[in-house]
């Protein structure tokens, strides 16, 4: 074998190994999701069987039919939960991004007293586990009388998301060279115009990904929502999952079906924004 041939063989082997490794990693990541989808179509007996039934024997849409079938037939108020989730997630994301953009921009661009202390404080607030605050939050919200309202959850999620959003957005604005906003101001922009015309479009993909993070956090959050909600007026989808537990049994199939219903919109939302994320924004503002 010539040296060229052996090098080529080695490269192909390495390529195949690479592929297999990635495949295994993806399998591990995707398997639980796949299992959830699969179980939503299988009867509970089969799900709970020991030893496990790997190959599904009977598949049906019964769980979905029951879920949307209304009360009394194993149905749960999916549409109410969905509406609550949507209102709360979208509103809190929009507010968190608005605050995060203003804050992130300030941290990236301005010098002010106590900047690093403030930034550290924001980051430290993330070290407190959210669940540790659930009791104080519950007591305060109960006193104010906003338990079981959209408002309570929106406020909570904004507070939860703002520090992280600021941190992300700050990083993205830092990547936009300062010169660009200055050039825009020389070209006749007010600061405000320079921001919207030049800096915002360039940090846009980053802000979009911050929005995805904020939305996902609110959409999936369970612990606090389960404390702060009571009825269909404000229960979100993750809390709705609890409807499938009763004193002695858990309807795993129904739960999996609701989980699928929950995942779908988040999936679509991420996909839409992801497309904007890689909108071919090629840098080249400054030398290089």
């Amino acid at each position, binding site marked *: 074998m010539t040296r060229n041939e052996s090098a080529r063989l080695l490269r192909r082997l390495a390529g195949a190994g690479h592929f297999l490794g990635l495949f295994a990693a993806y399998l591990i990541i995707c398997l639980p999701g796949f299992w959830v989808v699969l179980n939503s179509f299988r009867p509970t007996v089969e799900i709970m069987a020991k030893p496990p039934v790997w190959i599904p024997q009977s598949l049906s849409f019964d769980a979905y039919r029951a879920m949307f079938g209304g009360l009394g037939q194993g149905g749960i108020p999916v549409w109410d939960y969905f509406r609550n989730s949507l209102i709360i997630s979208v509103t809190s994301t929009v507010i968190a991004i608005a605050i995060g953009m203003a804050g992130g921009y300030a941290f990236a661009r301005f010098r002010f007293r106590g900047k690093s202390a403030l930034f550290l404080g924001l980051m430290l607030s993330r070290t407190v586990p959210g669940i540790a605050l659930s009791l104080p939050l519950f007591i305060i919200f109960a006193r104010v009388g906003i338990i079981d309202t959209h408002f309570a959850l929106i406020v909570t999620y904004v507070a939860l998301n703002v520090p992280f959003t600021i941190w992300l957005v700050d990083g993205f604005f830092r990547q936009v060279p300062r010169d660009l906003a*200055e050039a*825009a101001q020389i*070209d*006749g922009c007010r600061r405000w*115009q320079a921001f919207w015309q030049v800096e915002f479009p360039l940090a846009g993909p980053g802000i979009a990904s911050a929005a995805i993070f904020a939305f996902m956090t609110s959409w999936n959050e369970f612990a606090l929502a389960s404390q702060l909600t009571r009825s269909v007026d404000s229960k979100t989808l993750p809390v709705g999952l609890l409807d499938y537990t009763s004193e002695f049994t858990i309807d795993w199939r129904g739960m999996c079906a609701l989980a699928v219903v929950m995942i779908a919109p988040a999936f679509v939302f991420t996909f839409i924004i992801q497309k904007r994320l890689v909108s071919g924004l090629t840098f080249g503002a400054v030398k*290089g």
Partner: protein
Amino acid sequence: MATVALDKLVKRYGPVEAVRAIDLDIADGEFVALVGPSGCGKSTTLRMIAGLEEISSGVVRIGGEVVNDLPPRSRNISMVFQSYALYPHMSVRENLGFSLKIAKRPQSEIDQRVVEASEILHLNALLDRRPSQLSGGQRQRVAMGRAIVRKPEVFLFDEPLSNLDAKLRAQMRTEIKLLHARVPSTVIYVTHDQVEAMTLADRIVIMRDGVIEQAGSPDEVFHRPATRFVAGFIGSPTMNLLDAASAALRSPAAR
């Protein structure tokens, strides 16, 4: 075209004085180069003229009018940045026309002036590209085009050629000189490269530690340096400086 006058201009960063009360009068249509080692305050001075840096004290006049508190957009200036600062999300055409779009000029006028500028700078073939698809020299040209499209009274250049290779730098130097001849205007040009300063400028201002060491024509600063610093800074190789006692001031060699 306009005159530019600096009167006791000072920039302070906390206790540090980056620019110390400099005076400078620039005539209408003059090409002035600010040179000096890095950290001498030349860029800060330029940025104060542009309105990008707040003035600690003193006065900047453009065309006789005090502009201290005017924002950059109201000063009728253009600036070419060292990094070029092209807008990466816009095509070359949009980059060139951006200032006119912001000024809400009619589209026909924008197109016409963009074409004019791109002809001067040989950018016609590149108008629909993005900055990322251009070479360094082409980006530099776009940056200059963006500056001339506005037809400003004063051009400010902040080390515009320092990111180019030696050959391109020499070529762009010629182009800048030609440009100044074609588009008559007042130019303030910051550089640390004395060759650029000597070849381009009508007048050279040498700065050190926030003060002006000497201002004069290239010949003047080369042949009659006012201070030892200027003598050592200008010329390549630099002037030899020898310690000597003035025993015979009357001898012709010492005069």
